[in-house]
């Protein structure tokens, strides 16, 4: 378990560091929203899922895409705008998708995929499937009406969906405190009649445990939905590949407990050196292969502009 978790955490971290390294070259012509610092949420959640479960997320899409099993080569190629990308270069970083691995997409408009997720969950229930849906969204999405409309419907219909609010305290540069009078996000979910819990410390195992329990309950026929607010911290700027503590909307000091609590480092230290180096080497090789794949892949042909608008 620890090794799986570490591999997934380390892989996401390193992929994004690599993206940050490449970004200034302008080869990645797509706005990137990095999850560095937040990996524990995607990993903790997705390690509790089965391949046939599906996830919906946001433009901050790399972590959950990878954690859920999305193809790394296709992701890199997508960032490069290549024809071999997971969306043939027509999506970009904000619209990663890999339906074969249950990654049902990511939207650049805050809040939108929450509604898509509950619709998917409705279908699963109707189809008597025992898989489930995870809806990832940020604290910012909880400001939007669609968040409430979706929670209300999910509760009303007892849908097999797990809502994961990745609360990194900010929507771009605006603190949750300037957006809600009460910053108790779980209370919002509870008002709709949904069981809700907060995971305060970003502990990947705690998140994993909560979601595992919820998933088991849903598969055993308990009625959903479940709601988890996972506190976490974004270490990079909102969009782009740099730090942004100089902007002044938050302090480095605020970040420090989160840096100390970095789950990637924590798990590195929990794993035997030999095995760790092997995992890391494998991940590095995979990343280099993915970057090479992206570099070498062709751009889409001009005619591709007109395909995929409607069928046929």
């Amino acid at each position, binding site marked *: 378990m620890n090794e799986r978790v570490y591999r997934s955490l380390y892989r996401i971290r390193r992929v994004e560091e690599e993206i940050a390294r490449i970004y200034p070259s302008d080869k990645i012509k797509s706005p990137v929203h990095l999850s560095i610092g937040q990996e524990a949420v995607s990993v903790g959640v997705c390690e509790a899922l089965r391949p046939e479960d599906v996830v919906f997320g946001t433009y901050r899409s790399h972590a959950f895409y990878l954690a859920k099993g999305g193809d790394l080569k296709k992701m890199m190629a997508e960032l490069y705008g290549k024809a071999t990308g997971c969306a043939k270069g027509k999506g970009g970083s904000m619209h990663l998708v890999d339906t074969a691995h249950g990654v049902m997409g990511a939207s650049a408009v805050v809040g939108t995929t929450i509604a898509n997720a509950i*619709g998917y969950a409705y279908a699963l229930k109707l189809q008597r499937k025992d898989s489930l849906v995870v809806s990832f969204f940020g604290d910012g999405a909880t400001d939007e009406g669609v968040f409430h409309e979706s929670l209300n419907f999910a509760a009303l219909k007892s849908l097999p969906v797990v809502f994961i609010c990745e609360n990194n305290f900010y929507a771009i540069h605006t603190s949750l405190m300037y957006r809600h009078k009460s910053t108790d996000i779980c209370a919002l979910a509870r008002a709709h009649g949904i069981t809700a819990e907060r995971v305060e410390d970003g502990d990947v195992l705690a998140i994993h445990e909560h979601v595992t329990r919820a998933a088991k309950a849903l598969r055993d026929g308990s009625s959903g939905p479940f709601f988890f607010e996972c506190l976490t911290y974004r270490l990079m700027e909102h969009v782009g590949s740099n730090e942004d503590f100089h902007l002044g909307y938050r302090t480095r000091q605020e970040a420090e407990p989160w840096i100390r609590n970095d789950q990637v480092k924590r798990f590195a230290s929990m794993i035997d050196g030999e095995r760790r180096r092997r995992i890391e080497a494998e991940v590095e090789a995979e990343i280099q292969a993915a970057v090479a794949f992206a570099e070498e892949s062709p751009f889409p042909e001009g005619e591709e502009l007109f395909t995929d608008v409607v*069928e046929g």
Partner: protein
Amino acid sequence: MERVLSYIDAIREATDQEMQRDLSVVVFGLDVDDPKAIQGTTRGLMEKYGRERVFGTPLSEDAMTGAAVGMALAGLRPIHIHIRMDFLMLAMNQLVNVAAKSRYMYGGQVRIPIVVRSMIGKSWGQGAQHSQGLYSFFMHVPGLKVVAPATPYDAKGCLIHAIRDNDPVMYIEHRILHFQKGPVPESSYTMSPGKARVTVKGRDVTLVGISYMHSECLRACRYLESIGIQAEVIDPIWLSPLDIDTIAASVHKTGRLCIVDNGWTTCGASAEIAALVTERLQGVKDVRVRRMGFAPVTCPPTPLLEDLYYPNGRTIASAAHDLVTGTHNGWLPDERLDLQEIEFRGPF
């Protein structure tokens, strides 16, 4: 004898047949399961197919539209119903930013087979917020299909196609059309996107009537007959994709085009048709074009102003007369009560 159904029953039958045929079809929206059953168009479906496949929803147009998209991703074919088109303004984000774009922005990896039924209101003081025909918004956005059937026959055929179509289809009804009756075969049939119909042949002027305005064009046609003008009347049926070939061919023949829209003209369907015909025929034929539609104001409920707000058979005839004669002598036919009930009954 041909079987005659109302537009309402044609919709109900189309839905029923598709739900029977395909378990993935679901129907939902505000009040679809209530005693009024969306003017009767969903009557009996809940009893027949159960509460899971036919269900009323909370008042949550935004999330319910997003849910339709999610259901489609999971393999269902949702039909989402709104009793007023005006309420779609709450669903624009999911329609424009998600439903229309998913197939493309996910590189063809997904498809969004949803049908969004919505109704245009008219008369008895519906007023500002219950009377709009805003389909040009959906024509504007790549990735959406738009259909506005004007007869019971088309209502059925287009709805069956829309349900089977693998892209989002905006299915536009009109409250007054709901009461129209006409021949509707019992067996299932589909009407393909992008096919207009010439409902009256004529040589002097082409009248294109959208949605309910097709009926008014039929009236205009009769008024024009009485003064020896032969109008050709076209029902575009599908607005996106639009059968501009049929329209342009007609205008090529008549040299005159009057488009009568069931919405505002500015950046509307009538603007698009006028522009397309111009682009097609410029240098080929010298044509005269005229657009009609809602007056460029908010819809007033008071009857006299409401009458002035909408084109009708007489004002359309008058405009067509002017186009044909090249005059502006103010000719306006007297109202003929025998034209009150005018329905296109085929042949199809």
